[in-house]
């Protein structure tokens, strides 16, 4: 750029603090009339300055296109900056292939792949119209820029929509943008092979087929085989799927809770103090049974217990017990508060082939074809840690929300029964089976159904708890091969 140009020597070495804010404002569409006047004055009569500015515009356009934000306002107020549904001009990430690349913050847009697909598919409509002898009017065709869906609605039945959210219907294709649910469960199939359940009240922003931003409330993501690398972007962390089902909850202050129900994820924490300019932190690997809460300050806490419907749907980690809950809470005296392991409470969850522990894939079953004892079916079930089977001085506190019959399933190896169990509980004579499957018994696979592939038989002990409150369970038998089980039903 020549010395006589009015345009400052931006970008050469030092940059200019005078003009660059103007450029930034213009690029973002936020410039005032005075700022625009200043930019025009700088560009007028200076081809070099105009060239430099056009370079900025061009780079800005490529970066927006590349990041998928081509249709979104950038840098404005949250509302103004939001990407509206079906207004996505931006590109769409590829399908699951190469989805590991989603661990990068950005995806290179595969040249509007979905738009191509939509267009080519729509060609048939156009051709049919043009070649139809009776054709008079063009069918309503989506503009190319709108044909960039990143997700499809799987189920919206019973959903109440958040204020300003237009109702969505099943099978509807969604472009990048925000979705708000006031109540009910919205299930979306992200094009990157992941099913995202949004539990109202909650808001998410669809970024791409392989990335969803959790803005508020609770979501669960189950990722399919091609979706490895799917990212849930939350205020406290990016959660990168490694083949799993996991939940993310964003609280009012931006606190982020992450619960791994199956498989494993990488947690890339965002440092609130260092912000965007900080090098990415080393990912923390969380596996099944791990749950952590990242406060807005960046502090990390263990989530002690997760309450989840037996159907595997909605879940909760705090607040009062869910309506109908029998077991309200579980905690222990041994676990590192920052350790990240949680007890899962499966509300009404005791059934054939239900998972027994958060850290194993073992399952509870009836010991024979008769099935589980009828009085236990549908009980609230605690999934403890099998790794606690021989933890000394364990004190496991179970809190019931109402008068309840509390059950402990214990394997009496060598006739050993813990003193606390013999003292406080009654042997019902009932039995349940544990199907361990691999890896402990490598010759057996996990069986399905009552009496199938049962590896160990547990005795059912019972105690009546006459009022809502807590009961402390002690350590297991020293010779135990698996941790005891815990269940509860309302007291009749």
């Amino acid at each position: 750029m020549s010395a006589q140009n009015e345009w400052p020597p931006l970008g050469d070495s030092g940059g200019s603090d005078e003009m660059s804010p103007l450029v930034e404002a213009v690029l973002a569409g936020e410039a005032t009339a005075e700022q625009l006047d200043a930019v025009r004055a700088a560009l007028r009569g200076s081809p070099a300055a105009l060239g430099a500015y056009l370079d900025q515009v061009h780079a800005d356009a490529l970066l927006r296109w590349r990041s998928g934000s081509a249709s979104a306002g950038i840098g404005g107020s949250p509302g103004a900056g939001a990407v509206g549904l079906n207004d996505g001009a931006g590109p769409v990430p590829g399908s699951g292939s190469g989805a590991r690349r989603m661990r990068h913050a950005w995806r290179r847009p595969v040249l509007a792949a979905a738009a191509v697909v939509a267009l080519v598919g729509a060609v048939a409509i156009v051709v049919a119209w043009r070649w139809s002898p009776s054709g008079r009017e063009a069918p309503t065709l989506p503009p190319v820029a709108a044909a960039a869906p990143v997700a499809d609605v799987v189920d919206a039945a019973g959903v109440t929509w958040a204020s300003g959210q237009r109702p969505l219907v099943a099978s509807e294709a969604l472009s990048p943008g925000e979705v708000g649910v006031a109540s009910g469960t919205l299930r979306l199939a992200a094009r990157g092979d992941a099913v995202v359940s949004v539990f109202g009240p909650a808001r998410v922003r669809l970024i791409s087929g392989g990335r969803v931003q959790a803005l508020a409330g609770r979501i669960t993501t189950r990722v399919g085989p091609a979706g490895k690398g799917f990212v849930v972007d939350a205020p406290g962390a990016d959660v990168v799927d490694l083949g799993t089902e996991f939940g993310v909850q964003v609280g009012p202050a931006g606190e982020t809770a992450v619960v791994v129900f199956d498989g494993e994820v990488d947690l890339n924490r965002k440092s609130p103090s260092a912000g965007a300019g900080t090098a990415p932190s080393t990912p923390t690997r969380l596996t099944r049974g791990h749950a952590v809460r990242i406060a807005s300050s960046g502090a990390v806490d263990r989530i002690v217990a997760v309450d989840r419907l037996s159907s595997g749907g909605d879940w909760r980690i705090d607040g009062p017990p869910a309506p109908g809950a029998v077991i309200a809470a579980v905690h222990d005296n041994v676990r590192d508060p920052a350790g990240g392991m949680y007890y899962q409470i499966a509300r009404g969850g005791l059934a054939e082939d239900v998972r027994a522990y958060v850290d194993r894939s073992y399952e509870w079953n009836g010991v024979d074809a008769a099935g589980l004892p009828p009085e236990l079916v549908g009980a609230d079930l605690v999934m403890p840690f099998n790794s606690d089977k021989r933890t000394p001085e364990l004190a496991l506190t179970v809190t019931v929300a109402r008068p309840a019959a509390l059950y402990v399933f214990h394997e009496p190896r060598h006739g050993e029964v813990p003193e606390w169990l013999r003292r406080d509980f009654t042997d019902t004579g009932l039995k349940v089976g544990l199907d361990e499957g691999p890896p402990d018994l490598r010759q057996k696979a996990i069986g399905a159904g009552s009496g199938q592939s049962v590896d160990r038989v547990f005795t059912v002990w019972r105690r009546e708890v006459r009022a809502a409150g807590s009961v402390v369970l002690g350590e297991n038998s020293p010779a135990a091969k698996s941790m005891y089980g815990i269940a509860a039903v309302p007291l009749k």
Partner: protein
Amino acid sequence: MSGDEAVTPDRLGAVVRQIAASQSGLYAYVCALLGGSRGAADVLQEANVVLWEKAAEYDATRPFLPWAYGIAHFQVLAYRKRQSRDKLVFDDGLLAAVDAAVRRRDDRADRELEALDGCVGKLSPRQRAVLDARYRDGEAVEAIAGRLNKAPNALSAELYRLRKGLMDCVRRALGREETA
């Protein structure tokens, strides 16, 4: 395809594929004429509708992109008419100069996007994080600057330098590729 030739499904399909394949280039072109991204997505959508409607009129013996640019140009002009003049980045005189400059450049956005990937990969994690915050997350300059304890003007200058550096890198990458 010329006007007296029959419009076959194959030909129409080929045009539609070209429309789809030129989306990033058209977006960049529209941004250039508008002087920024404000309104660019709307204009691109309107241009796409017209391209679609006129697909049968496209003469396949001529280059596609100039034809598409011409249509997009008219949509930019229509957009400008709907805006108050003080909101336009370029006045009429500048617009003509911009159009000429952009067409001379013969930028190929699809190849540039590929090169851009490699160039972004050469940035430091911190620089990538800044771009990520600005472009992927849509954060305001003030918000990013606040978290980095930087003055907003300094961050704007950094973003300016990053964009310039990336364009230089993209051109070098494409230049090397073309001479290889």
